Protein backbone atom coordinates (compact mmCIF):
# COMPACT_ATOMS: atom_id res chain seq x y z
CA UNK A 1 0.00 0.00 0.00
CA UNK A 2 1.23 3.49 -0.78
CA UNK A 3 1.96 5.68 2.19
CA UNK A 4 -0.52 8.40 3.03
CA UNK A 5 2.00 10.98 1.88
CA UNK A 6 2.01 9.68 -1.69
CA UNK A 7 -1.78 9.45 -1.92
CA UNK A 8 -3.86 12.17 -3.52
CA UNK A 9 -6.09 14.08 -1.16
CA UNK A 10 -9.32 15.98 -1.71
CA UNK A 11 -9.76 19.52 -0.32
CA UNK A 12 -11.81 17.93 2.49
CA UNK A 13 -9.10 15.54 3.69
CA UNK A 14 -8.41 17.35 6.96
CA UNK A 15 -12.16 17.66 7.57
CA UNK A 16 -12.54 13.87 7.38
CA UNK A 17 -9.62 13.34 9.72
CA UNK A 18 -11.05 15.82 12.20
CA UNK A 19 -14.36 13.91 12.06
CA UNK A 20 -12.52 10.72 12.98
CA UNK A 21 -13.15 9.00 9.67
CA UNK A 22 -11.32 5.79 8.85
CA UNK A 23 -9.23 6.62 5.78
CA UNK A 24 -8.28 4.13 3.07
CA UNK A 25 -6.31 4.09 -0.16
CA UNK A 26 -9.04 4.16 -2.80
CA UNK A 27 -7.42 3.95 -6.22
CA UNK A 28 -4.56 6.19 -5.10
CA UNK A 29 -6.78 8.59 -3.14
CA UNK A 30 -6.78 8.97 0.62
CA UNK A 31 -10.53 8.72 1.18
CA UNK A 32 -12.93 8.17 4.10
CA UNK A 33 -14.41 4.65 4.07
CA UNK A 34 -16.59 5.31 7.12
CA UNK A 35 -17.30 7.72 9.96
CA UNK A 36 -19.98 6.36 12.34
CA UNK A 37 -20.09 2.93 10.66
CA UNK A 38 -21.16 1.60 7.29
CA UNK A 39 -24.51 0.21 8.48
CA UNK A 40 -25.45 3.43 10.29
CA UNK A 41 -24.44 5.58 7.33
CA UNK A 42 -26.28 3.32 4.88
CA UNK A 43 -29.54 3.50 6.86
CA UNK A 44 -29.09 7.26 7.28
CA UNK A 45 -29.09 7.72 3.50
CA UNK A 46 -32.09 5.40 3.01
CA UNK A 47 -34.12 7.06 5.77
CA UNK A 48 -32.87 10.64 6.14
CA UNK A 49 -29.90 12.27 4.42
CA UNK A 50 -26.18 11.66 4.11
CA UNK A 51 -23.35 13.69 2.62
CA UNK A 52 -20.35 12.31 0.77
CA UNK A 53 -17.09 13.87 -0.33
CA UNK A 54 -16.74 12.72 -3.93
CA UNK A 55 -14.16 15.32 -4.89
CA UNK A 56 -11.89 12.54 -6.12
CA UNK A 57 -14.18 12.17 -9.14
CA UNK A 58 -12.77 13.72 -12.30
CA UNK A 59 -14.19 16.44 -14.54
CA UNK A 60 -13.43 16.92 -18.21
CA UNK A 61 -14.89 19.84 -20.16
CA UNK A 62 -15.36 19.91 -23.91
CA UNK A 63 -15.94 23.25 -25.59
CA UNK A 64 -16.05 24.66 -29.08
CA UNK A 65 -18.01 24.80 -32.30
CA UNK A 66 -17.82 21.02 -32.75
CA UNK A 67 -18.03 20.07 -29.08
CA UNK A 68 -21.11 17.96 -29.74
CA UNK A 69 -19.40 16.11 -32.56
CA UNK A 70 -16.54 15.14 -30.26
CA UNK A 71 -18.91 14.03 -27.48
CA UNK A 72 -20.89 11.97 -29.99
CA UNK A 73 -17.65 10.36 -31.17
CA UNK A 74 -16.41 9.34 -27.72
CA UNK A 75 -19.67 8.41 -25.97
CA UNK A 76 -22.21 5.65 -26.60
CA UNK A 77 -25.38 7.53 -25.70
CA UNK A 78 -26.93 10.16 -27.99
CA UNK A 79 -25.68 13.49 -26.66
CA UNK A 80 -27.60 15.20 -29.46
CA UNK A 81 -30.78 14.38 -27.53
CA UNK A 82 -29.61 16.43 -24.55
CA UNK A 83 -31.16 19.79 -23.81
CA UNK A 84 -29.18 22.50 -22.04
CA UNK A 85 -29.28 21.62 -18.34
CA UNK A 86 -29.74 17.91 -18.92
CA UNK A 87 -27.47 15.02 -17.89
CA UNK A 88 -26.94 11.69 -19.59
CA UNK A 89 -25.33 8.48 -18.33
CA UNK A 90 -23.04 7.18 -21.07
CA UNK A 91 -20.17 4.89 -21.94
CA UNK A 92 -16.65 5.89 -22.92
CA UNK A 93 -15.47 2.87 -24.88
CA UNK A 94 -12.39 1.54 -26.56
CA UNK A 95 -12.57 0.53 -30.22
CA UNK A 96 -13.07 -3.12 -29.20
CA UNK A 97 -16.23 -2.20 -27.30
CA UNK A 98 -14.89 -2.53 -23.74
CA UNK A 99 -15.32 0.26 -21.21
CA UNK A 100 -12.66 2.90 -20.73
CA UNK A 101 -15.09 4.40 -18.20
CA UNK A 102 -18.72 5.12 -17.45
CA UNK A 103 -19.45 8.83 -17.46
CA UNK A 104 -22.16 11.43 -16.95
CA UNK A 105 -22.42 14.06 -19.66
CA UNK A 106 -23.86 17.45 -18.68
CA UNK A 107 -24.90 19.80 -21.49
CA UNK A 108 -23.96 23.29 -20.28
CA UNK A 109 -24.41 25.06 -23.65
CA UNK A 110 -24.55 24.11 -27.31
CA UNK A 111 -20.77 24.45 -27.41
CA UNK A 112 -19.97 23.24 -23.87
CA UNK A 113 -20.24 19.78 -22.31
CA UNK A 114 -19.15 18.93 -18.77
CA UNK A 115 -18.30 15.29 -18.15
CA UNK A 116 -17.95 13.67 -14.74
CA UNK A 117 -15.68 10.60 -14.78
CA UNK A 118 -14.33 8.09 -12.28
CA UNK A 119 -11.43 9.17 -10.06
CA UNK A 120 -8.95 6.47 -10.94
CA UNK A 121 -9.79 6.63 -14.65
CA UNK A 122 -9.58 10.38 -15.14
CA UNK A 123 -6.07 10.57 -16.58
CA UNK A 124 -6.57 7.78 -19.11
CA UNK A 125 -10.05 9.13 -19.96
CA UNK A 126 -8.57 12.52 -20.75
CA UNK A 127 -5.84 10.99 -22.94
CA UNK A 128 -8.40 8.78 -24.68
CA UNK A 129 -10.65 11.74 -25.47
CA UNK A 130 -7.79 13.98 -26.61
CA UNK A 131 -6.60 11.25 -28.99
CA UNK A 132 -9.99 11.23 -30.68
CA UNK A 133 -10.28 14.98 -31.01
CA UNK A 134 -10.10 15.68 -34.72
CA UNK A 135 -12.80 18.32 -34.34
CA UNK A 136 -12.99 22.05 -33.76
CA UNK A 137 -13.20 21.49 -29.99
CA UNK A 138 -11.01 21.80 -26.91
CA UNK A 139 -10.66 19.17 -24.20
CA UNK A 140 -9.95 20.57 -20.76
CA UNK A 141 -8.82 18.48 -17.77
CA UNK A 142 -10.91 20.37 -15.23
CA UNK A 143 -10.62 18.16 -12.12
CA UNK A 144 -8.38 20.58 -10.18
CA UNK A 145 -11.06 23.26 -10.47
CA UNK A 146 -13.84 21.28 -8.77
CA UNK A 147 -14.66 19.81 -5.43
CA UNK A 148 -17.76 17.60 -5.46
CA UNK A 149 -20.14 16.85 -2.60
CA UNK A 150 -23.08 14.45 -2.85
CA UNK A 151 -26.16 15.04 -0.68
CA UNK A 152 -28.32 11.93 -0.82
CA UNK A 153 -31.50 10.66 0.78
CA UNK A 154 -35.17 11.53 1.19
CA UNK A 155 -34.28 14.69 3.18
CA UNK A 156 -31.55 15.82 0.76
CA UNK A 157 -33.77 18.32 -0.99
CA UNK A 158 -34.85 20.01 2.26
CA UNK A 159 -31.25 20.14 3.44
CA UNK A 160 -29.84 21.70 0.30
CA UNK A 161 -32.76 24.07 -0.21
CA UNK A 162 -31.78 25.88 2.99
CA UNK A 163 -28.47 26.82 1.33
CA UNK A 164 -29.50 27.87 -2.17
CA UNK A 165 -32.02 30.08 -3.90
CA UNK A 166 -32.13 27.65 -6.83
CA UNK A 167 -35.59 26.09 -7.18
CA UNK A 168 -34.59 22.52 -6.35
CA UNK A 169 -38.00 20.86 -6.85
CA UNK A 170 -37.94 22.26 -10.39
CA UNK A 171 -34.77 20.31 -11.20
CA UNK A 172 -35.81 16.95 -12.62
CA UNK A 173 -33.85 13.74 -12.09
CA UNK A 174 -30.75 13.82 -14.33
CA UNK A 175 -30.99 17.58 -14.86
CA UNK A 176 -28.80 20.29 -13.34
CA UNK A 177 -28.73 24.00 -12.80
CA UNK A 178 -25.88 26.46 -12.35
CA UNK A 179 -26.51 28.60 -9.30
CA UNK A 180 -24.99 29.17 -5.89
CA UNK A 181 -24.76 27.11 -2.71
CA UNK A 182 -23.76 28.95 0.48
CA UNK A 183 -23.08 31.99 -1.67
CA UNK A 184 -20.48 30.34 -3.89
CA UNK A 185 -21.03 29.37 -7.54
CA UNK A 186 -22.19 25.77 -7.80
CA UNK A 187 -23.29 23.33 -10.44
CA UNK A 188 -26.22 21.48 -8.85
CA UNK A 189 -27.02 18.11 -10.43
CA UNK A 190 -30.01 16.05 -9.36
CA UNK A 191 -28.54 12.58 -9.47
CA UNK A 192 -26.54 10.23 -7.34
CA UNK A 193 -25.05 6.83 -6.76
CA UNK A 194 -27.23 5.58 -3.94
CA UNK A 195 -30.67 4.78 -5.35
CA UNK A 196 -32.12 7.72 -3.39
CA UNK A 197 -33.19 11.18 -4.43
CA UNK A 198 -30.39 13.66 -4.05
CA UNK A 199 -27.92 16.10 -5.49
CA UNK A 200 -24.30 16.31 -6.46
CA UNK A 201 -22.81 19.77 -6.30
CA UNK A 202 -19.62 20.99 -7.92
CA UNK A 203 -17.89 23.92 -6.25
CA UNK A 204 -14.47 25.56 -6.08
CA UNK A 205 -12.03 23.50 -3.98
CA UNK A 206 -11.22 26.57 -1.86
CA UNK A 207 -14.87 26.70 -0.76
CA UNK A 208 -15.27 22.98 -0.05
CA UNK A 209 -14.58 22.97 3.69
CA UNK A 210 -16.92 25.89 4.36
CA UNK A 211 -19.72 24.44 2.21
CA UNK A 212 -19.27 21.00 3.82
CA UNK A 213 -19.67 22.52 7.28
CA UNK A 214 -22.75 24.50 6.25
CA UNK A 215 -24.40 21.44 4.70
CA UNK A 216 -23.69 19.50 7.90
CA UNK A 217 -25.36 22.23 9.96
CA UNK A 218 -28.30 22.60 7.59
CA UNK A 219 -28.97 18.87 7.61
CA UNK A 220 -28.57 18.34 11.35
CA UNK A 221 -32.31 18.80 11.97
CA UNK A 222 -33.03 16.02 9.47
CA UNK A 223 -30.47 13.63 10.93
CA UNK A 224 -27.76 14.19 8.32
CA UNK A 225 -24.51 12.30 8.76
CA UNK A 226 -21.25 12.25 6.81
CA UNK A 227 -20.96 9.02 4.87
CA UNK A 228 -17.96 7.24 3.44
CA UNK A 229 -17.15 5.06 0.49
CA UNK A 230 -18.23 1.93 2.38
CA UNK A 231 -21.87 3.01 2.52
CA UNK A 232 -21.61 4.46 -0.99
CA UNK A 233 -20.76 0.95 -2.19
CA UNK A 234 -23.56 -0.90 -0.36
CA UNK A 235 -26.06 1.77 -1.47
CA UNK A 236 -25.08 1.63 -5.13
CA UNK A 237 -25.02 -2.18 -5.12
CA UNK A 238 -28.59 -2.37 -3.78
CA UNK A 239 -29.58 0.00 -6.60
CA UNK A 240 -27.59 -2.12 -9.09
CA UNK A 241 -25.44 0.76 -10.27
CA UNK A 242 -22.25 -0.33 -12.00
CA UNK A 243 -18.82 0.23 -10.46
CA UNK A 244 -15.84 0.45 -12.78
CA UNK A 245 -13.39 -2.37 -12.11
CA UNK A 246 -16.26 -4.59 -10.95
CA UNK A 247 -19.34 -4.76 -13.19
CA UNK A 248 -17.58 -2.96 -16.03
CA UNK A 249 -14.01 -2.70 -17.30
CA UNK A 250 -12.04 -2.88 -20.53
CA UNK A 251 -13.12 -6.51 -21.07
CA UNK A 252 -16.85 -5.81 -20.63
CA UNK A 253 -19.12 -4.09 -23.14
CA UNK A 254 -22.29 -2.15 -22.30
CA UNK A 255 -24.31 -4.98 -23.85
CA UNK A 256 -22.71 -7.53 -21.50
CA UNK A 257 -23.43 -5.25 -18.55
CA UNK A 258 -27.15 -4.85 -19.30
CA UNK A 259 -26.54 -1.26 -20.36
CA UNK A 260 -27.90 -1.49 -23.92
CA UNK A 261 -30.04 1.55 -23.06
CA UNK A 262 -26.96 3.78 -23.11
CA UNK A 263 -25.91 2.50 -26.55
CA UNK A 264 -27.45 4.33 -29.51
CA UNK A 265 -26.21 2.42 -32.55
CA UNK A 266 -28.51 4.46 -34.79
CA UNK A 267 -26.89 7.79 -33.93
CA UNK A 268 -23.99 7.28 -36.37
CA UNK A 269 -20.37 6.40 -35.82
CA UNK A 270 -18.78 6.41 -32.38
CA UNK A 271 -15.79 4.65 -30.88
CA UNK A 272 -16.73 1.03 -30.22
CA UNK A 273 -19.79 1.10 -32.44
CA UNK A 274 -18.48 -1.54 -34.86
CA UNK A 275 -17.73 -3.99 -32.08
CA UNK A 276 -21.10 -3.43 -30.41
CA UNK A 277 -23.03 -3.80 -33.68
CA UNK A 278 -21.28 -7.12 -34.29
CA UNK A 279 -21.96 -8.25 -30.72
CA UNK A 280 -25.62 -7.29 -31.01
CA UNK A 281 -25.96 -9.28 -34.24
CA UNK A 282 -24.37 -12.39 -32.71
CA UNK A 283 -26.12 -11.92 -29.40
CA UNK A 284 -24.38 -11.47 -26.05
CA UNK A 285 -22.80 -14.55 -24.47
CA UNK A 286 -22.95 -13.43 -20.84
CA UNK A 287 -25.25 -11.48 -18.65
CA UNK A 288 -24.98 -9.54 -15.40
CA UNK A 289 -27.47 -10.94 -12.93
CA UNK A 290 -28.29 -10.42 -9.27
CA UNK A 291 -28.34 -13.11 -6.59
CA UNK A 292 -29.12 -13.60 -2.93
CA UNK A 293 -27.25 -16.02 -0.72
CA UNK A 294 -29.57 -18.72 0.66
CA UNK A 295 -26.79 -20.55 2.52
CA UNK A 296 -24.60 -19.08 5.24
CA UNK A 297 -21.86 -16.93 3.77
CA UNK A 298 -21.14 -13.61 2.13
CA UNK A 299 -20.17 -13.46 -1.53
CA UNK A 300 -17.31 -11.10 -2.25
CA UNK A 301 -15.93 -9.58 -5.41
CA UNK A 302 -14.17 -12.13 -7.58
CA UNK A 303 -15.60 -15.27 -5.98
CA UNK A 304 -16.36 -18.04 -8.54
CA UNK A 305 -19.97 -18.98 -9.32
CA UNK A 306 -21.14 -22.53 -10.08
CA UNK A 307 -24.23 -23.58 -12.03
CA UNK A 308 -25.16 -27.27 -11.78
CA UNK A 309 -21.87 -27.78 -9.97
CA UNK A 310 -19.68 -26.44 -12.77
CA UNK A 311 -17.78 -23.15 -12.94
CA UNK A 312 -19.98 -20.68 -14.82
CA UNK A 313 -19.07 -17.14 -13.85
CA UNK A 314 -17.78 -14.78 -11.19
CA UNK A 315 -19.06 -12.32 -8.62
CA UNK A 316 -18.51 -8.69 -9.64
CA UNK A 317 -19.75 -7.20 -6.36
CA UNK A 318 -20.94 -8.95 -3.24
CA UNK A 319 -21.88 -7.63 0.17
CA UNK A 320 -24.37 -7.77 2.97
CA UNK A 321 -27.38 -5.65 2.01
CA UNK A 322 -28.17 -3.47 5.02
CA UNK A 323 -31.62 -2.54 3.64
CA UNK A 324 -32.70 -6.09 2.82
CA UNK A 325 -30.90 -7.84 5.66
CA UNK A 326 -29.63 -10.42 3.19
CA UNK A 327 -26.31 -11.14 1.53
CA UNK A 328 -26.50 -10.08 -2.10
CA UNK A 329 -24.33 -9.78 -5.15
CA UNK A 330 -24.02 -9.38 -8.88
CA UNK A 331 -22.37 -11.93 -11.14
CA UNK A 332 -21.75 -12.65 -14.78
CA UNK A 333 -23.23 -15.91 -16.07
CA UNK A 334 -23.55 -17.41 -19.55
CA UNK A 335 -26.74 -15.95 -21.00
CA UNK A 336 -28.43 -19.36 -21.29
CA UNK A 337 -27.89 -19.92 -17.54
CA UNK A 338 -28.86 -16.45 -16.38
CA UNK A 339 -32.56 -17.00 -15.70
CA UNK A 340 -34.06 -15.43 -12.58
CA UNK A 341 -34.93 -17.88 -9.81
CA UNK A 342 -32.14 -20.30 -10.63
CA UNK A 343 -30.22 -22.09 -7.89
CA UNK A 344 -26.50 -21.32 -8.11
CA UNK A 345 -23.56 -21.70 -5.79
CA UNK A 346 -20.88 -19.21 -4.85
CA UNK A 347 -17.47 -20.50 -3.78
CA UNK A 348 -16.95 -18.75 -0.46
CA UNK A 349 -13.45 -19.41 0.84
CA UNK A 350 -13.23 -22.77 -0.92
CA UNK A 351 -16.72 -23.93 0.11
CA UNK A 352 -19.72 -23.87 -2.27
CA UNK A 353 -22.57 -21.93 -0.66
CA UNK A 354 -26.12 -21.91 -2.06
CA UNK A 355 -27.60 -18.82 -3.67
CA UNK A 356 -30.46 -17.98 -6.02
CA UNK A 357 -30.61 -15.51 -8.88
CA UNK A 358 -33.09 -12.67 -8.36
CA UNK A 359 -34.57 -9.71 -10.20
CA UNK A 360 -32.75 -6.40 -9.82
CA UNK A 361 -32.43 -3.71 -8.64
CA UNK A 362 -32.38 -5.21 -5.14
CA UNK A 363 -33.76 -1.92 -3.84
CA UNK A 364 -35.95 0.64 -5.53
CA UNK A 365 -37.15 3.68 -3.64
CA UNK A 366 -40.83 4.47 -3.43
CA UNK A 367 -41.56 7.60 -5.49
Amino acid at each position, binding site marked *: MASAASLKATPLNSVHRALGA*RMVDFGGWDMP*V*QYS*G*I*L*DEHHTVRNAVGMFDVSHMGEIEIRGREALRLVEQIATNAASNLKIGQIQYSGLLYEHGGFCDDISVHKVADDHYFICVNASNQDKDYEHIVQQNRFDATVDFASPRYAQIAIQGPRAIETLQKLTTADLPAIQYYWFTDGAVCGTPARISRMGYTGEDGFEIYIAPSEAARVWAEIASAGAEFGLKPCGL*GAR*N*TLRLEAKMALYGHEIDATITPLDAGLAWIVKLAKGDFTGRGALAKQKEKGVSRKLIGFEMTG*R*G*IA*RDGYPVLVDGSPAGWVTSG*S*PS*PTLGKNIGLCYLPVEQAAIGRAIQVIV*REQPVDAVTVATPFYKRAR
Partner: protein
Amino acid sequence: MYPEDLRYTKEHEWVRVEGDTGIVGITHHAQEALGDIVYVDLPKVGAQVEQGKPLGSVESVKAVSDIYSPVSGEVTAVNDELSTAPEKLNADPHGEAWLVKVRLSAPGDIVNLMSASEYQTYVGAES
Protein backbone atom coordinates in the same frame (compact mmCIF):
# COMPACT_ATOMS: atom_id res chain seq x y z
CA MET B 1 -8.61 -0.59 27.23
CA TYR B 2 -6.76 -3.92 27.11
CA PRO B 3 -7.38 -6.16 30.15
CA GLU B 4 -4.27 -7.20 32.05
CA ASP B 5 -5.41 -10.82 32.39
CA LEU B 6 -5.44 -11.44 28.61
CA ARG B 7 -2.51 -12.32 26.34
CA TYR B 8 -2.48 -10.90 22.81
CA THR B 9 -1.31 -11.85 19.31
CA LYS B 10 0.12 -9.70 16.53
CA GLU B 11 -2.95 -10.68 14.49
CA HIS B 12 -5.20 -9.09 17.15
CA GLU B 13 -6.61 -12.11 18.97
CA TRP B 14 -6.57 -12.57 22.74
CA VAL B 15 -6.65 -15.54 25.12
CA ARG B 16 -7.60 -15.72 28.78
CA VAL B 17 -6.24 -18.82 30.50
CA GLU B 18 -8.45 -20.37 33.18
CA GLY B 19 -6.96 -23.63 34.44
CA ASP B 20 -6.40 -25.90 31.44
CA THR B 21 -8.73 -23.86 29.22
CA GLY B 22 -8.01 -20.87 27.01
CA ILE B 23 -10.89 -18.53 26.16
CA VAL B 24 -10.22 -16.91 22.79
CA GLY B 25 -11.48 -13.69 21.21
CA ILE B 26 -10.54 -10.79 18.96
CA THR B 27 -9.34 -7.48 20.29
CA HIS B 28 -10.97 -4.10 20.47
CA HIS B 29 -8.44 -2.94 17.90
CA ALA B 30 -9.52 -5.75 15.54
CA GLN B 31 -13.24 -4.99 15.83
CA GLU B 32 -12.59 -1.30 15.34
CA ALA B 33 -10.48 -1.90 12.23
CA LEU B 34 -13.12 -4.23 10.79
CA GLY B 35 -16.11 -1.98 11.42
CA ASP B 36 -19.64 -3.42 11.57
CA ILE B 37 -19.22 -7.18 11.99
CA VAL B 38 -21.93 -9.13 10.21
CA TYR B 39 -20.71 -12.72 10.10
CA VAL B 40 -18.53 -15.03 12.17
CA ASP B 41 -17.35 -18.46 11.06
CA LEU B 42 -16.06 -20.63 13.92
CA PRO B 43 -14.85 -24.24 14.25
CA LYS B 44 -17.05 -26.94 15.77
CA VAL B 45 -16.64 -28.36 19.24
CA GLY B 46 -14.03 -31.10 19.06
CA ALA B 47 -11.95 -29.41 16.35
CA GLN B 48 -8.20 -29.20 16.88
CA VAL B 49 -6.66 -25.76 16.59
CA GLU B 50 -3.02 -24.79 16.48
CA GLN B 51 -1.28 -21.63 17.63
CA GLY B 52 -0.80 -19.24 14.69
CA LYS B 53 -3.03 -21.26 12.34
CA PRO B 54 -6.46 -20.14 11.07
CA LEU B 55 -9.24 -20.78 13.54
CA GLY B 56 -12.10 -19.19 11.63
CA SER B 57 -13.05 -15.93 10.05
CA VAL B 58 -14.92 -12.76 10.80
CA GLU B 59 -16.57 -10.55 8.22
CA SER B 60 -17.55 -6.91 8.32
CA VAL B 61 -19.75 -5.20 5.74
CA LYS B 62 -16.62 -4.38 3.82
CA ALA B 63 -14.17 -7.23 4.29
CA VAL B 64 -13.39 -10.73 5.43
CA SER B 65 -10.57 -11.38 7.89
CA ASP B 66 -9.00 -14.61 9.15
CA ILE B 67 -8.87 -15.34 12.86
CA TYR B 68 -5.65 -17.06 13.97
CA SER B 69 -5.64 -19.21 17.06
CA PRO B 70 -3.51 -17.79 19.89
CA VAL B 71 -3.16 -21.26 21.44
CA SER B 72 -3.15 -24.95 20.50
CA GLY B 73 -5.66 -27.55 21.67
CA GLU B 74 -9.17 -28.92 21.28
CA VAL B 75 -12.23 -26.70 20.98
CA THR B 76 -14.53 -27.45 23.92
CA ALA B 77 -17.11 -24.67 23.46
CA VAL B 78 -18.21 -22.25 20.76
CA ASN B 79 -20.03 -18.98 21.38
CA ASP B 80 -23.12 -19.76 19.29
CA GLU B 81 -24.74 -16.43 20.10
CA LEU B 82 -22.38 -14.79 17.64
CA SER B 83 -23.99 -16.59 14.71
CA THR B 84 -27.22 -14.67 15.27
CA ALA B 85 -25.73 -11.55 16.91
CA PRO B 86 -22.30 -10.99 15.37
CA GLU B 87 -22.55 -7.27 16.26
CA LYS B 88 -21.72 -8.25 19.85
CA LEU B 89 -18.13 -8.49 18.63
CA ASN B 90 -18.19 -4.74 18.10
CA ALA B 91 -19.83 -4.04 21.42
CA ASP B 92 -17.91 -6.30 23.83
CA PRO B 93 -14.94 -7.99 22.14
CA HIS B 94 -13.02 -8.72 25.37
CA GLY B 95 -16.02 -10.02 27.29
CA GLU B 96 -19.39 -11.36 26.17
CA ALA B 97 -18.25 -11.86 22.57
CA TRP B 98 -15.59 -14.51 23.21
CA LEU B 99 -15.28 -16.91 20.27
CA VAL B 100 -14.22 -20.36 21.46
CA LYS B 101 -12.86 -22.19 24.48
CA VAL B 102 -9.86 -24.42 23.91
CA ARG B 103 -8.49 -27.20 26.13
CA LEU B 104 -4.83 -26.29 26.01
CA SER B 105 -2.48 -28.97 24.69
CA ALA B 106 0.59 -26.78 25.17
CA PRO B 107 -0.07 -24.28 27.98
CA GLY B 108 3.45 -22.90 27.53
CA ASP B 109 2.29 -21.43 24.19
CA ILE B 110 1.21 -18.24 25.87
CA VAL B 111 4.77 -17.13 26.53
CA ASN B 112 4.86 -16.31 22.80
CA LEU B 113 2.05 -13.79 23.26
CA MET B 114 2.06 -10.14 24.26
CA SER B 115 1.02 -8.69 27.59
CA ALA B 116 -1.62 -5.93 27.68
CA SER B 117 0.99 -3.18 27.83
CA GLU B 118 3.05 -4.76 25.04
CA TYR B 119 -0.06 -5.06 22.89
CA GLN B 120 -1.08 -1.47 23.64
CA THR B 121 2.35 -0.34 22.44
CA TYR B 122 2.08 -2.61 19.41
CA VAL B 123 -1.27 -1.25 18.20
CA GLY B 124 -0.18 2.25 19.05
CA ALA B 125 2.81 1.83 16.74
CA GLU B 126 0.72 0.18 14.04
CA SER B 127 -1.88 2.96 13.80
